């Protein structure tokens, strides 16, 4: 159990570090880094707080406390994937609308420059 919790501590520490470096280098926008930082911090706290982990496992009816940690990780990341799916969908819609608008404006511009008569 201790080995698993230690691995989780290292993993969450590395995740925190990666996210902070990515924000600093502007690879991730600050607003999108918040979810990752919160998730990594929650993992770090749970993996270092045996009492909190055992209480959570007890409430969830799990006999092996690290399972509670894995359950929390799963739920947190599912929620994050959902959030990013919403964001990606909106970006895709915006992207399509912009591409269509650009094509239509170019079409009008060509007509103004004396291309073929309008359709």
């Amino acid at each position, binding site marked *: 159990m201790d080995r698993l919790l230690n691995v989780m501590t290292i993993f969450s520490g590395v995740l925190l570090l990666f996210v902070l470096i990515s924000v600093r280098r502007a690879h991730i926008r600050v607003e999108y880094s918040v979810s990752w930082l919160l998730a990594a911090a929650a993992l770090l706290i749970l993996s270092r707080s045996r009492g909190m982990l055992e209480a959570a496992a007890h409430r969830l009816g799990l006999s092996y406390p690290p399972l509670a940690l894995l359950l929390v990780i799963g739920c947190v990341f599912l929620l994050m994937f959902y959030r990013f799916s919403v964001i990606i969908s909106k970006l895709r819609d915006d992207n*399509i609308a912009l*591409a*269509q608008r650009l094509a*239509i404006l170019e079409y009008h511009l060509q*007509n103004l420059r004396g291309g073929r008569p309008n359709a």
Partner: protein
Amino acid sequence: MTPPTDDSLLIIVPAYNEEAAVGGVVRDIQAAMPGTPVLVIDDCSVDATHSVARAAGARVLALPHHLGLGGCVQAGYKLAFELGYRYVIRVDGDGQHDAGDIPKIFEALRTTGCEMVIGSRYVDGDDPPTSFVRGLGIHFFRMVLRPILGKPVRDPTSGFVGVSQAALQVFSKSFPLEYPEIEALVVLQRRRFRFVEVPCRMHPRTTGRSSITAFRSIYYIVHVLLGVFVNVLKFDQRRKP
């Protein structure tokens, strides 16, 4: 800019890597509908689709990157709506639709008052040969759509469609992006719009390959089925009769 007349018609041809077929498609349309403007929407082809279409006498709306069929067709609908066209007929750029049937679709659009006219391969009751999986999919969607649309539709996957200005207005704001034909029917039904099918011929594809392979047919069915039910659940977009 020439203002479109009351019966103004624009024919749109969505095309992606169709250099071998699109020139013939444009010329066939011009022969069937002399004087009617033809707009090829080039979905960022990597071949000579753009120049071939222009050389054949079509206007070209060039998309800056590949959007897929729904985004490509919607771009044409948006432009047609902005230019004030009353009717738009879509003809695929692969040469499978017979341009000789365009006058029938146009006539049905003008005389029936329906917001959509579908050029149907099956309206006479004869099912032309198609792959087993595709045939199964068409039968399946006929059954699914019958209660939703309130009337039977023989060829729900046909891309040979004409739409009125009212439908153009709707589609320029909301149009399915992937495999749009079936979902578009449900979008129109939600607004109490009407459609009619007219018999049309379909030629076998002579160049290129269909994007819907046997494996993708399964994905197609699941994707479209989900899209249909999502549209059915959009109560807020229903138009009062």
